[in-house]
């Protein structure tokens, strides 16, 4: 799916000024709340008319101010999953699902969607009788059945609790991997974006700060203030190579060595993205003995950035990857951490939670 967005629009105090083109199965719109992400998807859906610019999907123009083109939402074939599901309260789940279904020539069939989302038992219920996660799954199904060429998802997990988030996240991955449904996914949560998106558009104050592959955006140190200091870290492409059934652990191989993470949900041979948060990384100058930490990898310090506070960040090269470690300035001075120094990178297995390991498409 090729998406071209180049729009301008005055929005109260801030101005929306967005330019990007992306060719990827899943495009992530990432940024703080209020950065203009929702306005961009509303403009793509036709619910917000830009003052100027152009929007096209796979070369077909949906909006072009100069040419006087502005397709109404119902002519755009763009599905929309809102933050709060917005199911029609007067219709049953089945009639909600079928609301936008054309009936004939369905690329995505009713039974397939219902099966994929696990909502077979909910069909005759009223939306009011569903849990938050169920409601969101029905909303996804309803949008899918309208046979959209592009599905917009605006913070679809934001109104759910943690448990439900993981549940719905799995279904979103399934529609990407199994239905090959092109998606624009909006979120301010690093975990969701790194797990789902291939191309990331990083938004700030109504504009695009940077856009590129998810790998590039989340590994760029200069974007760290926007991709999250607390959540920030490295995104590593790896492959599941071994299961330890006795201890419920999975080993992942990447260019810099092997990582151990809890859980056995990843089938062997699967390519995954693993996010390592820099605050979970410790450094040692010698290989430690008698230690509970499972991941000990040898690398070379490639750079140190010192913001002047108590905490500094050291970049360590592990194979093809750069892993940042947030350590205290005191530790840096005691250990003599500087560019070129050989160090051991230590990461607890438990630092990889379910949201930091995602299947890559």
């Amino acid at each position, binding site marked *: 799916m090729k998406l071209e967005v180049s729009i301008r629009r005055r929005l109260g105090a801030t101005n929306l000024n967005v330019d990007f083109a992306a060719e990827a199965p899943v495009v992530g719109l990432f940024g703080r709340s209020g950065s203009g992400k929702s306005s961009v998807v509303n403009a793509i859906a036709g619910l917000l008319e830009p003052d100027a610019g152009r929007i096209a999907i796979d070369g077909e123009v949906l909006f072009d101010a100069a040419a006087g083109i502005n397709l109404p*939402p119902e002519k755009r074939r763009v599905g929309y999953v809102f933050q709060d599901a917005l199911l029609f309260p007067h219709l049953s789940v089945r009639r909600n699902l079928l609301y936008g279904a054309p009936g004939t020539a369905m690329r995505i069939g009713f039974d397939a969607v219902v099966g994929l989302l696990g909502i077979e038992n909910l069909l005759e219920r009223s939306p009011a009788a569903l849990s938050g996660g169920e409601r969101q799954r029905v909303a996804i199904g309803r949008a899918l059945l309208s046979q959209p060429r592009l599905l917009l998802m605006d913070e679809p997990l934001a109104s759910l609790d943690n448990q439900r988030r993981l549940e719905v996240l799995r279904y979103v991955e399934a529609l990407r991997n199994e239905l090959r449904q092109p998606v624009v996914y909006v979120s301010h949560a690093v975990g969701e974006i790194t797990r789902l998106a291939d191309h990331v558009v990083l938004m700030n104050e109504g504009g695009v700060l940077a856009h590129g592959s998810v790998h590039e955006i989340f590994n760029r140190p200069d974007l760290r203030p926007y991709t999250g200091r607390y959540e920030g870290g490295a995104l590593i492409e790896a492959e599941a190579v071994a299961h330890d059934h006795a201890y419920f652990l999975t080993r992942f191989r990447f260019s810099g060595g092997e990582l151990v993470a809890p859980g056995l949900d990843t089938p062997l041979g699967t390519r995954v993205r693993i996010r390592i948060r820099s605050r979970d990384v410790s450094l040692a100058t010698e290989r430690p003995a008698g230690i509970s930490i499972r991941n000990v990898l040898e690398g070379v310090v490639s750079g140190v950035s010192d913001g002047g506070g108590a905490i500094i960040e050291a970049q360590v090269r592990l194979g093809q990857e750069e892993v940042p470690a947030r350590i205290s300035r005191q530790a840096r001075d005691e250990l003599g951490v500087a560019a070129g120094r050989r160090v051991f990178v230590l990461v607890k297995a438990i630092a990889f939670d379910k949201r930091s390991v995602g299947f890559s498409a």
Partner: protein
Amino acid sequence: MGDNRPMLSAEETTIVLLSLKVAAASVVVSLPPAALAALVLARARFPGKTLFDALIHLPLVLPPVVIGYFLLLGFGRKGPFGAFFEQVFGLTFAFRWTGAALAAGIMGFPLMVRAIRLAIEAIDPRLESAARTLGAGPWRVLASVTLPLALPGIVMGSLLAFARSLGEFGATITFVSNIPGETQTLPLAIYNFTQTPGGDAAVLKLCAVSVLLSLAALAASEWLNRRSRGVAAGRGLM
């Protein structure tokens, strides 16, 4: 009540049936324009909206006699609208039950618009946006989302207007006079009997019928109100 005399005389039955007919016709005729006006007031933004709103509310605040007189001017035989309807549709309002229905419909109009407007304003407009993204054009959205969700308000407004029509007096008597069997509805008949020596029994009976009809309308609206809240809570589906 051991005897076999009917509770209402033939004359009184005629009055009650005529009242129900006039009220029902007034509701049926005013419902489409009221729904349209409510939709415009709830969703549209245009210059002069305040004036439009005020105009719709006029019957609520003007003396009914004034409305009746305006109707006489506009919809009488010689009035511009009256002549038009008579020539084009063969429909006469002056001194006919149709005129009574028109007067009652206009007096109940603001109540109906208000109830429907409140119901439409309570609908999340994003539900309509969601329907658009699912491929529904504006008319389908109106028919499949907006109106069904506003249904409790539409029913409530209709009941209110119906009850208001049953009690309409001033505009009716001014516009179509007080003709037994044609324009003499319940309030007009009650007024008539109070002016007639020995009419007390009839007055009491018709008053009792009025009370019963009003109570029935109130009970119906209460029941519908509760039922629509049940739908919102997911206990029932339409």
